């Protein structure tokens, strides 16, 4: 199978600092890839580079058979939707308007059409945002905002969804619902790449985990393969405890301060 993304030797340097360096990755349709790693490991930079929002200083990223740097923004937004963490909006757009902005890459006319409304409706329903639809985005809770942003990304009808810490502000029920929704999308052939700090969320849902450390890929594999205490110690710098539930789902426990 041909990968959706082929990342080879990708590096991003800013102000003399290598944010990501020599990253090689193949990402396939139908995968839910979770990127994990300590702060400053380059997780967000990798995501932004995949979205074409960060220029590479070395290597290249192919989307399909074309270099991301050569795809024009509008075409890119039809294929790849990016959800960045917590945006503050300076003006009072309604939830419906925020989600409708996801239709921008598909709209050529000045007014939205039937198809645009249908897609917005569907996205609002998937993300459980229908009751919020006429609320002012600025008055929502953090978790509600996050769901609206994901809905707006879904309205782009992409084949790739990139999520940066989208689950961080969600309560347990909405975390589960988000990942259930993501899982359903992967069954439809979406590629989903999500950055998170929550190892347990990752091991429950990810088909593969990419572990980043200091801008480089430390390990790639299934949650089961990577739930390895010595690997986690070398990446995160603290001793973590791995438990296996039902003999398959690895759970990572943080030790008390004394044992660190």
């Amino acid at each position, binding site marked *: 199978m041909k990968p959706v993304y082929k990342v080879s030797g990708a590096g991003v340097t800013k102000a003399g600092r290598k944010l990501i360096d020599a990253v090689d990755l193949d990402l396939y349709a139908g995968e839910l890839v979770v990127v994990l790693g300590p702060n400053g490991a380059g997780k967000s930079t990798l995501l932004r580079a995949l*979205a074409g*929002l960060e*220029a590479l200083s070395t290597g290249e990223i192919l989307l399909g058979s074309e270099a991301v740097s050569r795809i*024009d*923004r*509008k*075409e*890119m*937004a*039809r294929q790849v*939707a*990016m959800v*960045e963490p917590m*945006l503050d*909006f*300076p*003006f*009072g*757009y*309604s939830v419906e*308007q*925020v989600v409708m*902005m*996801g239709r*921008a*890459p598909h*709209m050529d006319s*000045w*007014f939205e059409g039937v198809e645009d409304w249908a897609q917005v409706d569907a996205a609002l329903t998937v993300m459980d945002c229908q009751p919020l639809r006429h609320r002012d985005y600025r*008055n929502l809770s953090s978790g509600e905002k996050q769901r609206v942003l994901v809905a707006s990304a879904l309205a*782009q009808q992409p084949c790739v969804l990139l999520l940066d810490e989208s689950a961080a502000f969600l309560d347990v029920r909405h975390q589960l619902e988000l990942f259930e929704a993501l899982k359903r999308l992967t069954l439809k052939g979406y590629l989903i790449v999500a950055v998170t700090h929550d190892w347990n969320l990752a091991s429950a849902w990810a088909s593969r985990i990419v572990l980043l450390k200091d801008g480089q890929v430390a390990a790639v594999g299934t949650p089961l393969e990577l739930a390895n205490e010595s690997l986690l110690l070398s990446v995160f710098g603290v001793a973590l405890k791995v438990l296996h539930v039902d003999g398959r789902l690895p759970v990572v426990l943080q030790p008390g301060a004394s044992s660190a």
Partner: protein
Amino acid sequence: MSRYATILGLCIFISIAVLIICPLIGPTPMDWSKISTEGTLEAQIFWFARLPRVLLALLAGGALASAGVLFQALMRDALATPDTLGVSSGASLGAVVAICFGWADTARLGGLWTASLLGAGIVLLIVVGLSSSGRNVSSFTLLLAGITINSMCVAIMLFLQSVTSLGRSLAITRWLMGSVDAVEYRTLGLLSLFVLPASMVLIWRSRDWNLLAVGQGWASAKGLDTRRSLRLGYAAGSILAGSVTAITGPIGFAGLIVPHALRMLIGPDHRILLPAAFLIGGAFLAICDTIGRTIFSPAELPVGVITALLGGPFFLWVLTSRATIRS
């Protein structure tokens, strides 16, 4: 869509009402049967003093309010004004130079206007240059650049004003007060050649300003070529502010409170906000000017005094009433 049509219809109705009613008001008692007869005093006053003045106010107010809406969106800053980039200061400086060197003495408006447009144009080029040189120029950089350009222009103006003759210094003071005067129809035509296309471009690209008002990262993630859009926006907005300032002098407040009041009343969607700002901004300035030229007649108050005194309290009222509704 029906809400859109209602709001737009209401705004059109208001500005047409202003266009009809404001020229009827004035200090000189009029025998209305004579205004269609050529050569009468009534005809002179109506066609060549009041009507062009109201038209200029409609055009100028509309341009300033549209530019205000745009700059607030592009800078994601509710306190940005059409002059935030310093373009109006450039226009003012050009005019002051023209008055100082006597270019404004002979050709009634020609020399002044040309110099003023040139001033605005130079500032515009500096700003556009800034916004295209670096890979990513933040609105913060532009804001700082605008403040710097503003203070430099003010400094040069003060310098020129203090070394020039007393008569010219007075003329400068008068110009810097900002006013809507009766202008020739040729001037109005020329001004509309700048204002109307620039406003049309802004309205045409409304959905882009919606995306940029959220943020540049958001806009490019939603498929917008943000550098191109920003350059287009700053250029069009500066043409609006610069060409109007060149004729009226600096008029404060219209570009700040009309956008704000409208955003609170009808929401932040630029597809309706921009046309509404153009129509209501014009009506607002025309009403302010009508009050300014009648309330203490025969003395005339500069329109900037009225916009601030009338608009300020209204704006505060909108702010507080809105705050109570939301909380």
